[in-house]
């Protein structure tokens, strides 16, 4: 059944966040597939239910929490019926019947009816003055009640209940939170965190009746109080029910769909009836009905792809995280949160500062945690849980090492002669003296004065603490920690890049003048960085500054410890020929090469070559440079793939060669390694590459941010694509996004940790316009690259000055 435009009919029952989020995904993926009709029982377009507590607090108006206004529905040709609920579904005839009498046929039907507050089944629950906290109407009732009454009770000490209670308190009511359990938010917090939360909320004026089971609501027509099971009573003129939610399943049930607590769905949100789906809080997936927003978005994304016939991994459940949205209370919880015998725990508990942090690990992997009082690491904790990150020194420091009281003591207790910077052997006393004698106020100043922290950077946090300890009240945290490009400037990387663009600065000399460098020609830190940023911003205009390159990139070869060089010719995809091998062997003999080595990236390295021989070898080889020295694409490793391998499903070699030819020679913030695999056996080791590609039957998976180096990191899945074209497009967009936002020398593994995988996904995968713009910019940059060995061979003058020594024999002169 299709309509006149050839579109299929999609009907959405429920105009809330789950249904409309699904619609938004569909419009992005395939805007012309469906004619969409939406029914919503509330009189409003889709709004942000999560932010109802802000409306209650009066920090936002209803208009401000509207997510999609009516113009949006019109613009996308969506028929919207608000204040209208669906009364019946006929799964045989494939029609729905609405309360306004309409009968609408569907090809596909999505039920997104959400949930409602669970009303306790006790006597008196139907009295006036007892409401849920679920929609705008509830919110308006609460605002109204605050004008008329003083004493309120909120039943339920979970997330929603506490938010409602805090809202009513702000409206001037006296509020008591009634909770069945001893501990608040017992489904997200352990007892320690829970008691800290309660103490904090009590100090803000909330009252609590915990461990109380509601037995009856007192009063005549209107509620006047609550009687508990233990016989005690609480006066209350207004009651908010927030003791859990109940999925709205009646419609589905009467249509004969399989229903348990929620409408039963599989991993693609399919219900028991053909072409009928359920998404969000109304469903039950693998035994769970979620009551939080993140899972419903994840479900919506999978459902939308399924409805658009786009291959997608199944939805396998969500890692649930919770953040309390109450001002002045920082509480975060994700994954598993209760100590059990099989879990290892990292814990930091500080009653004086009221900070509590706990991270749980199973087999060394992070699987859950709680943050109270300091939620700065919340998003990273969630990421660590999602990826099953292994606990490292750095993560440990990020979680428990930042509490100022601890570290202050540590620094104060540190002996004067204690070495703070192990790389450069700088003691605490040296740093303290430098701060007091030279009036230093920033880490950068300490770096350039004492050499501490100039190599690996690992001691940076300790130096910050010493600075704080010595300066006391004078310490300005933001200024002290600011990471400038180098000590020649007080500007950070982002500030410099912005100024370069805004002021149209083309040469590094212009940058140093215009941005008031304290040093006319810069230093070994900023020179290569500026050269990179300028080339990235102005690919056509900027002339590469050879004298600002490190020696390897200047000489286009890898210098070795004895001053000789290694030469690696390009071998696309790691594929060579007998003729090329013979040539390489002959050249190795001719130049008396000290060693021929197969590199980690499937290439041949000729080692021990004299500088003056480099151009001759390049000439004899007649092959392009393999860029083994460069901050650019090094190699694309490939497995044998479908050309020869019995298991191969994709032609990894052809794809690897194609990618290497397309992206070679382009400057990047740091070296860049790739791999292409023909099947999930992953013989070319994608998980430790900046981009690792894995072929599956009918699709490519793209993994990013892997690193097998100093700080090992497993690559994470960016997306899965069907066609070679889309694969190349996303690679191009990813590389360009990294080029534009990465700090010089920052590998993708650190970059992704810094900017977040989700934001990268949004930029290079989800936002098509942005993706295409990135591709356009990288094309321009790629059109400017040149083969560097030929460039030198073609320029006899440059070749002599750069590669030939001047030799003088005094006996002849």
């Amino acid at each position, binding site marked *: 059944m299709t309509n006149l435009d050839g579109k299929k009919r999609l009907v959405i029952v429920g105009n809330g966040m789950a249904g409309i989020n699904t619609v938004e995904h569909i419009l992005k993926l395939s805007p012309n597939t469906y004619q969409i009709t939406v029914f919503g029982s509330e009189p409003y377009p889709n709004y942000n239910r999560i932010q109802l507590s802000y409306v209650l607090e009066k920090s936002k108006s209803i208009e401000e929490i509207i997510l999609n206004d009516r113009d949006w529905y019109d613009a996308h040709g969506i028929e919207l019926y608000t204040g209208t609920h669906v009364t019946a579904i006929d799964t045989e005839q494939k029609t729905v019947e609405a309360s306004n009498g309409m009968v609408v046929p569907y090809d596909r039907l999505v039920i997104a009816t959400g949930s409602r507050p669970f009303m306790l089944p006790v006597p008196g629950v139907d009295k006036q003055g007892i409401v849920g906290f679920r929609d705008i109407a509830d919110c308006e009732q609460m605002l109204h009640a605050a004008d008329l009454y003083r004493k309120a009770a909120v039943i339920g000490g979970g997330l929603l209940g506490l938010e409602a209670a805090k809202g009513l308190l702000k409206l001037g009511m006296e509020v008591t939170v009634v909770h069945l359990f001893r501990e608040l938010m017992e489904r997200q917090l352990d007892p320690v965190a829970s008691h800290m939360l309660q103490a904090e909320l009590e100090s803000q004026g909330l009252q609590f009746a915990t461990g109380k089971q509601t037995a009856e609501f007192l009063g005549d027509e209107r509620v006047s109080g609550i009687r508990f099971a233990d016989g005690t009573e609480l006066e209350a003129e207004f009651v908010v029910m927030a003791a859990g939610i109940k999925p709205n399943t009646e419609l589905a049930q009467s249509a004969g769909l399989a229903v348990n607590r929620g409408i039963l769905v599989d991993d693609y949100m399919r219900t028991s009836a053909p072409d009928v789906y359920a998404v969000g809080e109304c469903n039950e997936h693998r035994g769970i009905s979620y009551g939080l927003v993140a899972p419903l978005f994840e479900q919506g994304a999978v459902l939308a792809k399924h409805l658009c016939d786009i291959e997608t991994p199944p939805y396998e459940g969500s890692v649930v995280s919770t953040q309390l949205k109450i001002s002045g209370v920082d509480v975060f919880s994700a994954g598993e949160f209760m100590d059990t015998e099989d879990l290892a725990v990292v814990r930091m508990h500080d009653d004086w500062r009221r900070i509590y942090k706990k991270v749980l690990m199973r087999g060394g992997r992070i699987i859950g945690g709680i943050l109270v009082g300091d939620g700065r690491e919340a998003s990273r904790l969630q990421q660590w849980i999602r990826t099953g990150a292994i606990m490292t020194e750095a993560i440990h420091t990020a979680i428990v090492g930042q509490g100022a009281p601890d570290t202050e003591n540590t620094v104060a207790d540190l002996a004067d002669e204690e070495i703070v910077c192990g790389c450069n052997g700088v003691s605490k006393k040296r740093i303290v003296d430098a701060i007091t004698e030279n009036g230093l106020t920033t880490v950068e100043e300490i770096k350039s004065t004492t050499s501490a922290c100039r190599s690996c950077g690992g001691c940076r946090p300790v130096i910050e603490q010493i600075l704080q300890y010595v300066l006391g009240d004078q310490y300005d945290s933001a200024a002290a920690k600011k990471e400038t490009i180098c000590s020649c400037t007080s500007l950070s990387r982002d500030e410099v890049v912005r100024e370069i663009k805004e002021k149209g600065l083309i040469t590094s000399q212009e940058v140093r003048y215009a941005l008031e460098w304290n040093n006319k020609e810069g230093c070994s830190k900023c020179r290569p960085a500026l050269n990179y940023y300028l080339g990235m911003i102005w690919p056509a205009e900027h002339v590469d500054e050879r004298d600002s390159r490190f020696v390897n990139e200047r000489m286009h070869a890898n*210098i070795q410890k004895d*001053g000789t060089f290694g030469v690696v010719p390009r071998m696309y995809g790691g594929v060579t020929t007998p003729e090329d091998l013979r040539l390489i062997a002959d050249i190795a003999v001719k130049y008396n090469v000290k060693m021929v080595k197969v590199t980690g990236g499937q290439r041949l390295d000729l080692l021990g070559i004299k500088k003056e021989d480099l151009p001759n070898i390049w000439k004899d080889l007649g092959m392009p440079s393999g860029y083994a020295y460069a901050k650019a694409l090094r190699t694309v490793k490939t497995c044998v793939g479908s050309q020869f391998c019995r298991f191969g499903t994709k032609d990894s070699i052809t794809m690897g060669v194609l990618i290497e030819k397309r992206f070679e020679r382009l400057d990047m913030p740091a070296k860049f390694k790739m791999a292409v695999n023909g099947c999930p056996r992953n013989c070319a080791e994608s998980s430790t590459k900046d981009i690792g590609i894995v072929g599956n039957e009918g699709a490519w998976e793209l993994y990013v941010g892997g690193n097998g180096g100093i700080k090992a990191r497993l690559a994470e899945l960016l997306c899965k694509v069907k066609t070679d074209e889309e694969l190349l497009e996303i690679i191009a967009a990813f590389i360009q996004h990294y080029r534009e936002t990465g700090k010089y020398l920052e590998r993708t593994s650190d970059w992704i940790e810094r900017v977040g995988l989700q934001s990268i996904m949004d930029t290079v995968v989800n936002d098509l316009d942005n993706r295409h713009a990135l591709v356009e910019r990288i094309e321009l940059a790629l059109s400017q690259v040149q083969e560097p060995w030929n460039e030198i061979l073609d320029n006899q003058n440059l070749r002599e*000055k750069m590669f030939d020594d001047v030799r003088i024999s*005094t006996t002849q002169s």
Partner: protein
Amino acid sequence: MSSSAADPNYTYYEVGSTHDFLERVGRRVIIDEQEIALFKTSDGELYALENKSPGPKGGTLVEGMVSEHILFDPICDWRIRMEDGQVLDPDTGQVKTYPVLLTGEQVHIGIPKNGGESGNG
């Protein structure tokens, strides 16, 4: 540092014209057994330093980066003042330097007459 007056304690050898050296890119000059790194700064000054890093890990200097009259050691990133080879704070040490003599555009490097043990030129 280049000058136009010869120091009588040195024997000077011609190593080429000023155009044979790229600005801010070092070039190795070998006079008998002595390895020298010659640098031309952006203001045209020429400096000859012993091609040996003063840092703990050894290595050569000629690959270093030149900013004004400072050389950044390519291995340990120490800052070396090219006029006298002095390693600048916070590190310490000194690199041996040789006098450079200019006659017109011809560049000459002075080697100590007493077998190379004279102080820094």
